[in-house]
């Protein structure tokens, strides 16, 4: 039982005890609101607590572990330990490496299990028990949207981790939620011109799409942009999440007349479907006198490692890659590599940036109050974080920045060196009007 000897946060004991007692007497006053002065979980001591909510079990556990590493690194840098990483290249100089608003940054962690229920339970623990003023992390859109709406209702800021669905900052956007990662719309806009250069305009695509919201979102965006440049779509087939063996979906591709296969899959589905598609000889096939091509619109370097040699020559888009040569990326890769011995993933990058951006906004606002902080983030222009000049758009809380189009590397020099950057699509090319994706931000919530 010694494991549970965790020294409890004094504050949470007091609060639980007090509220428990009060609740028994008068049942109307015991919402958490009563117990916070200005806003929910306002830090009163020498520390400010952030909640890092990442998948630690399940298919995305490795991505979650990488996110957690990045967060721990960010906390170090914020508190002035280590080499400072991107703080040195970040265009805003508000942060001094002495904590945020004079408070040392502390954190709590939790497991989302990549399930909405578990992720919300974990986030609630951080808010209710540990007193976190901000929740961040996650590796899927379902979880991001679920936790974002929870944070909106509770009244804390949510800084999304890896989430690629349009809905996160579209249909389901929230005033308290912010996303640094790109989305399927941007993937489509960035990929299409590159695909046009590589494969021409006379192509017929066959989509295999994971049968849930993110998959549909991805399929829609890619269709929109490829059809816009003259491609046809032979078919778009939905595959069950976690199908494992995709052979029954791949064989119809062979004789469909299509010459491009688009795999709207992520994670294990992507690894499996890509591996199997290559086994079926699709990469070496000739159709209508053209080389058959496979496209994986959303690449993740961690997952690409799982597909091994099968990724060679296959196009996709990604939010960031460690081989980028700008100052920000180099600084981040250096401090991450020195700390852990291998390069960071895009999940690590986006979460590291989110942590820094949050801290910077808090410093500039001079408070951790969600509404003030949101105002500081909205419309914020910055640079030096690896993706060129970036805007946190006020209308939908989506970051607009350059998007990378990558390709599986033919001759990797190490196990981490599986992707090469083909093109950095400039931000102007992936911008779209905020009202296009619908949704309402609503009012911000301080939780008090």
């Amino acid at each position, binding site marked *: 039982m*010694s*494991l*549970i000897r*965790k*020294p*409890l946060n004094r504050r*949470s*004991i007091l609060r*639980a*005890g007090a*509220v*428990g*007692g009060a*609740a*028994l007497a008068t*049942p*109307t006053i*015991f*919402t*958490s609101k009563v117990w916070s002065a200005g806003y929910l979980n306002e830090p009163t001591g020498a520390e400010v607590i952030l909640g890092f909510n990442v998948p*630690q*079990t399940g298919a995305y*556990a490795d991505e*979650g*572990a990488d996110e957690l590493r990045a967060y721990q690194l960010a906390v170090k840098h914020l508190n002035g330990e280590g080499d400072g990483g991107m703080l040195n290249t970040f265009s805003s100089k508000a942060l001094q490496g002495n904590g945020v608003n004079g408070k040392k940054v502390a954190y*709590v*962690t*939790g*497991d989302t299990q990549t*399930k*909405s*229920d*578990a992720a*919300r*339970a*974990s986030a*609630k*623990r951080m808010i*209710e*028990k540990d007193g976190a003023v901000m929740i961040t992390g996650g590796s899927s*859109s*379902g979880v991001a*949207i*679920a936790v974002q*709406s*929870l944070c*909106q*209702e509770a009244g804390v800021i949510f800084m999304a981790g890896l989430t690629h669905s349009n809905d996160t900052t579209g249909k*389901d956007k929230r005033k308290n939620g912010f996303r640094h990662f790109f989305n399927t719309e941007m993937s489509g806009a960035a990929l299409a011109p590159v695909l046009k250069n590589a494969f021409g305009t006379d192509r017929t695509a066959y989509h295999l799409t994971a*049968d*849930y*919201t*993110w998959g549909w979102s991805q399929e829609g965006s890619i269709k929109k942009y490829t059809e816009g440049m003259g491609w046809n779509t032979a078919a778009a087939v*939905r595959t*069950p*999440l976690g199908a494992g063996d995709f052979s029954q979906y791949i064989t119809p591709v062979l004789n469909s007349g299509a010459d491009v296969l688009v795999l709207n899959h992520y994670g294990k589905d992507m690894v499996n479907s890509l591996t199997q598609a290559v086994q079926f000889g699709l990469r070496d096939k000739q159709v209508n006198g053209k080389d058959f091509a496979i496209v994986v619109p959303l690449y993740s370097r961690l997952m690409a490692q799982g597909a091994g040699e099968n990724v060679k020559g296959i196009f996709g888009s990604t939010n960031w890659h460690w081989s980028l040569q700008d100052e920000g990326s180099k600084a981040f890769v250096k401090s991450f590599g020195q700390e852990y011995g291998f390069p960071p993933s895009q999940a690590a990058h986006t979460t590291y940036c989110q942590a820094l951006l949050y801290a910077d906004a808090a410093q500039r606002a001079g408070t951790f109050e969600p509404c003030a902080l949101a105002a500081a983030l909205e419309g914020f222009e910055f640079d030096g974080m690896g993706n060129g000049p970036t805007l946190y758009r006020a209308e939908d809380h989506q970051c607009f920045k350059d998007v990378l189009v990558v390709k599986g590397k033919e001759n990797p020099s190490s196990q981490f060196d599986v992707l090469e950057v083909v093109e950095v699509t400039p931000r102007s090319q992936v911008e779209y009007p905020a009202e296009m994706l619908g949704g*309402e931000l*609503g*009012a911000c*919530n301080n939780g008090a």
Partner: protein
Amino acid sequence: MVTKISPARDYLLFGVFAIAVLTMPVWLAPIGAGYPDLLQKFAIFGLFATGFNLLFGLTGYLSFGHAAFLGVGSYTAVWSFKLLGMNPIPAAILAVVTSGVFALAIGYVSLRRSGIYFSILTLAFAQMSYNLAYSVLTPITNGETGLRVLESDPRLFDSSANADGPLISNLFGIEMTGYAGFYFCAVVLLIGFFIAQRIFRSPFGIMLRAVKTNQNRMNYTGLNPRPYTLAAFVISGMYAGLAGALMCITDPLAGAERMQWTASGEVVLMTILGGAGTLLGPILGAALIKYFENIFSAFNEQTLHEAFSFLPDFLEYPVVSVAGLFVGEGWHLTLGVLFMLIVIFLPGGIMEGVSRIGRLFRRSSSKVEPSGATAPAE
């Protein structure tokens, strides 16, 4: 034996249980579990497991698809919020009714088989529900994202005045979050526990045990086992539906993964871990699993170092690295080890441990008393 327990003892048990549940925020705080969300989960999953136990513990029919009813209850509750308004009472009632109807349909088919064949039938129905809810039924379930209440929903009986606040279920003005939410769940759990207790002591309850023991004799005693098992299945499905509704009342979001086989498996594990066929066991099992899931997963290296900082450095690091395997991302390992230890050393689950300790006590305080539950001679 059941018939030996007097009504007075039952009321005493219920009273002690009620006090224990209602004071959980106080006495669970020292072990880090005294915050509303986890307390709500204890109550909700306690209710779920109690209902499951009415089927499995009494009749021995092992359903591997009970999460389907949890999901159905959840979706019904959210639809009730969306269409009728944010009051939890109609949501709960509708959830119980719908899950009851679902259970009736699934139970009617599945109960034509017994043993593992029954288990697989229920599993198949639940998996079909899950797969469809995640994909093609998205218009009803909102798929991966989960069904939520939106500003634009009709909410017939809500005054439009409170439409600008967060969309949280409220009982005549009391918002069902935080401790209010917990007490709402706790009261429902107590009602559910009370009903379960009465069923355990009732003629119906004894008939269910008869189903488990010897269906052949039941038949030749003039009793038709089928309606008994079906009734137990439906009641148990209703409990699950109610638990699903409570999940949405405290947090208005219904996701499909609630119906996945792992969720069905979880309630099976909770029940066996606590002690199938006992009243308190499943609730203890539920609490234990939820505690591990929420608290053990939250330890990280930093907290471990704090916890073991009293050790000298040369000990602290190895201890932290060993302990680190079992917490944080390794919390599943702890759970697996726990399952094995309990089932190996306490065949009757946690409740067997409790009764062993109880027997030790009685033995030391009074003379040896003949235990009613001696092992069968054969």
